[in-house]
């Protein structure tokens, strides 16, 4: 197949999708006027195959059937000779809804994890005090005239009673003499709320379908070509092998090309097969992150060390739960704090709502959960009376606790990054100055805030997810001495260069050109969805292991030799492995006139594995930071500068810092905003909300 696809434009029909703004309602009637033969109107029942889309075991309908469960769900597809007539004809279609859908928002799934007994800390600690020895008892005893004894006499009588108790006599009387005082542990409670974020791209994307011989061609921007082929096959009843997917150019700001293109492609393919001509449907890509709530309580010892913690993390996953178990695992990984605790209990709750299925939005839940943990660390520091930087250095031990989700990680690297960031940004000084500035309002007309966060990055899918789904790649040593890697995952140029180098060294090849990567479209193997970059991150480890195996086999076996291996690493004892370390500080200013927070400066330090292309990595980190700031309602100052540094650490994992950066931005931003406003805030924020918070602060 040629890289540049020639789409046949002759006799092409063009389509638009009718979507509803309402959700959670039953459709009572779809009023479609009579159109002439040039038009084709399609509803859920008109699909040639099944009206369903399935991803990793989860299912959802392609077109709304009976009820609309999320806005943007296609109700009707209208195919016309050109886009203009399709748009005009679409105006005459109307849909009426009867009532609320029976399906209600429900708590779908809950997973708990923890260690130690949290009840011991919830109930407080007991102190048993003998009556005579307590200071409180003394005045009571003085008042009682009948029991007037000297202290010596009391001790004597005490010892007598104790000895009686040992003999098994008069024990109940002895209990009365003891007093149990229940001391409650000092508690710090935070509530971390992220409101839903919706993203609708300005850019239209087109799903084009046409038949050529026995093959059905589909051209669509997609992050997962195999998923498109599966969906089109089930929606049309067409043979899976005869569906050819061409990936058109795209840029996924918020993973919007994962789910929606599959829906549009399935509808376009059906229309193309019904009309027996090429069909193109244009629409906007859409994605959403549901609301996230985290409630966390930390129990502190009398010397203010964190002892135990309980967390409830609630995620709104939208109308159709997709990969909900994976979302839970990712969130759980982010929830576990880096400081040591004697007891820990976390619950991740997944909720349904009448909104777009939201399982991937640049992160699968790790960033937000990690941001909640980091935000809590900063809040804890404030409660204890330390700066967030000092608290982290004090609370983090040399090694992080080994859990089911992350291995025991050396914390020295994070402490180093924290110190570097704190020095560069003068964090402690600014943090104290901002706190003082807020408590003593001046005539400056603005307040400032600075936030700090540090965390471990993960990438891609969990080990459990990989063991549940068979995604593979294949390495073949051919008779001509070439090494061919067969994978359906679309591999980017820079990463491929690094892998070629790696294989050249491992297999002692003469040239990197002897290593060939198959085109994603040609691959006979399914390597799974290429999202969250874990493929890039862990693939080098897999290549290493397979190359060693291949090298050993080459000495004993005849060529060609092929080894099929799992694309993801299922050899780890934990769900995830660390891919990078990072620390970030954000300084912002809140003017009293506009109430629009303006970011002044951002400092970020990362410790990462091999960097395929430092320019690309730097640009992508900058883009994530700026995008995340914008997404949360912040403006950037015209003189704002981003200070980003990468340091290289000894690891094979190619730098994957996407989810890490998102989490760091959200967390440090929330801490900085709360310092500037002096009130608890929920992100994304806007000027109206800040004004309301400020006014309530002044009134109180």
């Amino acid at each position: 197949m040629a890289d540049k696809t020639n789409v046949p434009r002759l006799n092409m029909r063009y389509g638009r999708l009718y979507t509803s703004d309402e959700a959670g309602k039953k459709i009572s009637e779809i009023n479609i006027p009579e159109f002439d033969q040039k038009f084709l109107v399609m509803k859920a029942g008109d699909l040639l195959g099944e009206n369903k889309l399935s991803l990793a075991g989860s299912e959802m309908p392609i077109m709304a059937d009976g009820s609309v469960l999320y806005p943007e769900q296609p109700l009707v597809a209208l195919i016309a000779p050109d886009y203009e007539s399709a748009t005009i004809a679409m105006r005459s279609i109307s849909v009426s809804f009867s009532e609320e859908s029976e399906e209600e928002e429900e708590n779908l799934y809950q997973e708990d994890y923890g260690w130690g007994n949290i009840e011991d800390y919830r109930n407080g600690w007991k102190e048993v005090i003998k009556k005579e020895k307590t200071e409180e008892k003394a005045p009571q005893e003085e008042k009682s005239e009948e029991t007037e004894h000297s202290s010596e006499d009391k001790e004597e009588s005490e010892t007598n009673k104790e000895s009686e108790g040992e003999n098994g006599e008069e024990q109940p009387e002895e209990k009365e003499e003891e007093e149990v005082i229940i001391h409650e542990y000092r508690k710090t409670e935070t509530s971390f709320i992220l409101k839903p974020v919706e993203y609708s791209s300005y850019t239209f994307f087109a799903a084009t379908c046409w038949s050529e011989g026995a093959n059905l061609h589909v051209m669509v921007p997609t992050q997962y070509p195999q998923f498109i082929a599966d969906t089109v096959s089930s929606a049309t009843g067409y043979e899976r092998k005869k569906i050819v997917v061409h990936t058109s150019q795209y840029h996924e700001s918020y993973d919007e090309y994962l789910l929606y293109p599959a829906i549009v492609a399935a509808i376009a393919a059906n229309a193309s097969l019904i009309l027996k001509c090429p069909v193109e449907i244009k629409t906007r890509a859409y994605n959403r992150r549901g609301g996230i709530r985290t409630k966390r309580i930390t129990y502190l010892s009398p010397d203010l060390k964190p002892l135990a913690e309980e967390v409830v993390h609630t995620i709104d996953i939208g109308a159709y739960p997709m990969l909900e178990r994976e979302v839970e695992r990712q969130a759980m990984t982010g929830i576990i704090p880096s400081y040591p605790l004697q007891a820990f209990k976390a619950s991740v709750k997944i909720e349904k709502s009448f909104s777009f299925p939201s399982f991937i939005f640049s992160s699968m839940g790790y960033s937000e959960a990690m941001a909640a943990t980091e935000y809590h660390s900063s809040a804890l520091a404030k409660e204890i009376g330390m700066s967030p930087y000092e608290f982290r250095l004090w609370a983090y031990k040399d090694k992080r606790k080994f859990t089911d989700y992350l291995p025991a990680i050396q914390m020295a690297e994070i402490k180093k990054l924290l110190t570097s960031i704190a020095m560069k940004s003068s964090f402690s000084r600014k943090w104290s100055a901002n706190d003082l500035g807020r408590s003593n309002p001046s005539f400056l007309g603005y307040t400032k805030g600075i936030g700090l966060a540090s965390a471990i990055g993960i990438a891609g899918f969990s080990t459990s997810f990989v063991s549940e789904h068979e995604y593979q790649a294949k390495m073949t040593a051919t008779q001509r001495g070439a090494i061919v890697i067969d994978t359906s995952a679309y591999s980017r140029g820079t990463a491929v260069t690094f892998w070629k180098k790696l294989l050249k060294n491992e297999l002692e090849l003469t040239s990197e050109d002897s290593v060939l990567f198959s085109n994603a479209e040609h691959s006979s193997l399914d390597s799974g969805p290429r999202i969250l970059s874990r493929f890039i991150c862990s693939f080098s480890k897999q290549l290493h292991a397979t190359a060693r195996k291949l090298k050993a086999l080459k000495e004993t076996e005849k060529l060609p030799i092929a080894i099929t291996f799992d694309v993801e690493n299922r050899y780890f004892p934990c769900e995830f492995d660390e891919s990078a370390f990072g620390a970030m500080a954000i300084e912002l200013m809140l003017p009293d006139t506009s109430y629009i927070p303006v970011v002044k400066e951002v400092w970020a330090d990362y410790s990462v594995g091999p960097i395929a292309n430092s320019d690309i990595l730097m640009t992508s980190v900058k883009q994530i930071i700026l995008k995340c700031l914008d997404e949360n309602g912040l403006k950037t100052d015209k003189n704002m500068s981003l200070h980003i540094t990468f340091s290289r650490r000894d690891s094979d994992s190619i730098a994957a810092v996407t989810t890490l950066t998102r989490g760091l931005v959200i967390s440090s931003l929330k801490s900085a905003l709360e310092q500037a406003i002096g009130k608890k805030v929920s992100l994304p924020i806007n000027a109206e909300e800040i004004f309301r918070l400020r006014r309530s602060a002044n009134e109180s």
Partner: protein
Amino acid sequence: MKVDCIIDGKSLLLNLNSNKPLSLILSEDIQNPAISSHCNGELCGLCVVLMDGKAVLSCLVPAFEIRGKSIITFDGYAKTKNAKDIEKAYELMHIRPCPTCYNARTLLIESLLSNNMTSREEIIREMECVKCHCLEYNDMVRIVQAANEIRRKRHARRS
């Protein structure tokens, strides 16, 4: 109505609705791959084209306004020597706009350079019309100034 115009150097006679925006004419009637955005006038800034050498938002230009005008889209502009100056500036600064706004930003930079608008304030004011947040202001200024320098040197060599 019939509209005659020059798009990417080609003289065309188009039969159009008089109020159809230029962005839709380019993407639907001419199938221009460089324009994939139409925001219904929400000023996303991604549909920038050069109309008689000046950067305009094509979603705000109705069909009747393009009569007799020369329009250059990114598709036509990318092949020119001027485009290479800006490409070199991206490489030199190790900064690149994201693929979403790449075309619009490049055409805006071209408009700034050809109109000799290279002060910091002018650059920020013009570049702000693209609502994509992939570049910080300092980087935008550095790119434009680097591109200006590259072009100046190229012109000096030629003369």
